[in-house]
């Protein structure tokens, strides 16, 4: 295992490539790729990779990039791609198909503000808006977490109890273009972690079925229920593959929900992505000063691990949710899902939304301190609070 200084894009590109290479003893790897800032380096990495048994097809659009990966996956190969922002929007129809076809495709997604106007900086709106499709979504805080989560994503996606595609998500530039010390595992270790892919519903000449043809309402509903049951299984199966990851690589790829001093906290900040790093430093300081505050980092967004969050925060009465996204007419998406989770099991808890770093603005320690001051002083929740701008 070698420790190198690499960008988040490099980490994702490396992980996709070695995962694809690990399937060389089976049906190989194949994928469609298309560039968009800030993920382009990921697909460049994949395009340069000397696969023993693989084909990387540089296509004409994100829609086709996912289309090629769907065809490759359906034919039994390990398939993946990467995209960002409007590219994800353009890819959306086939993103949906990959999920409903139950294909174990891994998508490296770099969060970039959806346009217009033209903006290349970090905002989670481009992946959060895909929340209603049958995809697992994992958000990352470091380049190591990007690499580890990508490898884990294949294991999780290909598990026959799951068979759902996985999106591994990172912030534009803050991770994608920033070098961090990252352990790049050797192929041999990856081979041990990722068994050859065997897709139960692979196209088969001796079993002529029409994949995706007409189904009646009852049968279609059954298919949705199967997705729902697979989603229900995800948190437990994730833990299994997290444990085996630790055994093979000697590192923890991260929990679905990780916490800092939440056991006795009365107030917590709920964060995701790189905002978690900044928030943790501030929360640690306020804790040291005697304030009963904790922090939650949400890695898993779909399925929404609400139970785990509740279990980790037994005494919390005030939740401050930091969203680097804005759903028009609503507020933050994480906030919305958390409010739904708390209703019933935690009626009476206060849930306040802070829109921080939306459209790529910096989220500074000073801003986090303002958020904490506001949260602690509040007696009731109000509308989402826009931070980083004078309204």
């Amino acid at each position, binding site marked *: 295992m070698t420790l190198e200084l690499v960008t988040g894009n490099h980490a994702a590109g490396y992980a996709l490539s070695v995962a694809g290479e690990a399937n060389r003893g089976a*049906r190989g790897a194949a994928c469609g790729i298309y560039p968009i800032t800030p993920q382009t380096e990921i697909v460049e990495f994949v395009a340069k990779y000397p696969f023993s048994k693989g084909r990387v*097809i540089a296509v004409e659009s994100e829609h086709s*990039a996912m*289309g090629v990966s*769907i065809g490759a996956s359906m034919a039994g190969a390990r398939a993946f791609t990467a995209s960002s922002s409007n590219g994800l929007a353009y890819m959306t129809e086939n993103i949906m198909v990959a999920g409903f076809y139950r294909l174990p495709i891994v998508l490296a997604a770099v969060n970039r503000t959806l346009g217009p106007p033209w903006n290349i900086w970090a905002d989670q709106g481009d992946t959060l808006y895909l929340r209603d499709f049958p995809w697992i979504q994992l958000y990352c805080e470091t380049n190591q977490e990007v690499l580890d989560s990508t490898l884990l994503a294949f294991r999780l996606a290909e598990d026959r109890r799951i068979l759902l595609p996985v999106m591994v998500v990172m912030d534009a530039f803050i991770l994608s273009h920033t070098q961090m010390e990252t352990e790049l595992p050797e192929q041999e270790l990856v081979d041990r972690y990722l068994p050859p892919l065997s897709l139960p519903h692979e196209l088969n000449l001796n079993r002529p079925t029409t994949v995706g043809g007409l189904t009646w309402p009852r*049968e279609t509903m059954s298919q949705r229920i199967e997705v729902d049951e697979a989603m229900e299984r995800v948190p437990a199966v994730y833990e299994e593959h997290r444990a085996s990851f630790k055994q093979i690589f000697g590192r923890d790829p991260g929990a679905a929900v990780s916490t800092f001093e939440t056991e006795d906290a009365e107030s917590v900040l709920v964060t995701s992505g790189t905002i978690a790093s900044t928030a943790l430093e501030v929360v640690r300081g306020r804790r040291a000063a005697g304030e009963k505050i904790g922090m939650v980092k949400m890695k898993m967004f779909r399925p929404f691990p609400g139970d785990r969050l509740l279990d980790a925060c037994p005494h919390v009465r005030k939740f401050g949710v930091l969203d680097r996204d804005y759903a028009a007419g609503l507020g933050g998406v994480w906030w919305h899902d958390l409010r739904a989770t708390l209703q019933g099991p935690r009626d009476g808890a206060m849930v306040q939304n802070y829109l921080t770093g939306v459209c790529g603005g910096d989220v500074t320690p000073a801003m986090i301190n303002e958020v904490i001051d506001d949260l602690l002083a509040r007696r009731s929740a109000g509308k989402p609070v826009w931070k980083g701008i004078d309204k």
Partner: protein
Amino acid sequence: MTTSIELEKSPIACSEECLIRPGNTNCGGCGMSVGLNLLSRALAKAGQRCELVIPACCGIVTAGGYPTTGYSVPVLASTFAASPAFASGVAAVRDLNNEPQQVICWAGDGGTYDIGMATLSAAAERNENFIYICYDNEIYGNTGGQRSSATPVGAKTTTTPSGKIESKKDIMAIMAAHRIPYAATLSAAHPEDFLRKLDTGLHMNGFRFFLIHSPCPTGWKSEPAESIELVRLAVSSGLFPVYEVFDGWRYRINIKPTGADPVEYYRRQNRFPIDAMDLDAIRKHASASNERLARLAAVFPVAN
């Protein structure tokens, strides 16, 4: 009283060689169904099998409702615009694993001329190793008959209620311009030529494109029993040139027009408001198109 039919002896008996099985709900006189049967015969003669990739079109309706399938081979339904992308992925993995079966896109004109144009162009430019067959009924048939860019000038559709003003897109010229190994037009009125050219394509590698003139009685407002006669008239009057192009460069006319007047073709289809159409302009256009092709075939002939 009921009569039981021994399936093996019935006229609709189906062998493994038959791509579409009995019991499908396709319309009488449907050119697509004839095309699928001719494709079955070509595959059987070549001793080959196939996997189909089908976007939204009557071809995917042919499969029928889950869990049955109207096809005897695996079918992957693609999104409307993306059948060449899906097929690129399937064909890539087939080639990585040295498997012999053909990957064939089976798509209508909407999925080919319109929404799938960019995807088709890109797969052709990459010279992906699969066959693309467009059965062109010159209309969005599934949705009840709207214009596509394959709809001929003059034709009434639900979105061109007074007749289409624009000419039909020349998809063969577009595909030839990609310099793909093989492109050919197919007419069900000339099955020997149809089968011969499919066989040519089945024995080549790279991107192969076929265009079938596919009658649609529902959309064409024509008699189902006259479907083959109609496409024969389209060939004899020069409205549908039957030819093949190798490497986008060398041309061969397979069936020469006889100089028949196209008026008969139009008269037999109620989609054409024949009294309001400029038939002279249509005759001139067809004549010029065929002359252009004849010259190309003379100057850039197929080497024997």
